């Protein structure tokens, strides 16, 4: 049975490479045969905002959308999402606006490894 990794990331889509690192880690783990869950908490929720248009940097929203199609499960904290003025429907396809209690708990309880990416 494939091992499961959860990536918990808490920094935003801009100003740091953390979200990009999270995406790259998810890709690498998937390539190694891991089942991967990702959960955005705090500023991390901004990475799943639909319609990002960075001029010079990788578009982490598009990258997350792409790896979601490859089976990487993604959810973000609804409280954190709403606190930043985002509403359901503003998230990229493949990401779920969920909760710590339901989604993150499920991810963690299924996991063999948990990696936290934050500052």
């Amino acid at each position, binding site marked *: 049975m494939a091992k499961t990794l959860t990536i918990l990331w808490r920094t935003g889509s801009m100003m740091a490479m953390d979200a990009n690192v999270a995406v790259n880690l998810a890709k690498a783990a998937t390539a190694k045969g891991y089942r991967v869950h990702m959960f955005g908490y705090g500023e991390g929720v901004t990475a799943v905002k639909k319609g990002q248009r960075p001029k010079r940097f990788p578009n982490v929203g598009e990258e997350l959308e792409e790896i979601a199609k490859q089976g990487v499960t993604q959810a973000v904290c609804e409280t954190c999402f709403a606190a930043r003025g985002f509403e359901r429907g503003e998230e990229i396809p493949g990401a779920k606006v969920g909760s710590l209690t339901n989604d993150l708990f499920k991810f963690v309880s299924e*996991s063999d490894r*948990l990696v936290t990416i934050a500052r």
Partner: protein
Amino acid sequence: MANSILVLITKAPYGVEEAFAGLRLALAMGVNGMKTTVLMLEDGVFNAVSTQKPEAVRMPSNIEATKELYDFEIPVYVVKEDLDARGIPESKLFDGLKVLPADKLKGLLTEHDLATTF
């Protein structure tokens, strides 16, 4: 499959949201029945001070967020040496916290399947 998680709180309260976020994550795991433990270390020990006044900065109370964990029997440890290094006497801590010597940290870590840091 993980049955337990250790939540490390390394940041002081207020100013940044990290400590509060870690306490809420611990609550979310504990309410689902997962064995959950919180460890305050480094600057995280400032969260243990009983005389915090979060209303002064209009922020939610990290003391209340910590005490909510007690309802789900989530133990909260504070590292003794990190208290000492910051001049915080144990008499200054709020109730329910457990002071832990640093040489016990390894044992606490190995008791849990997963760990996350705030």
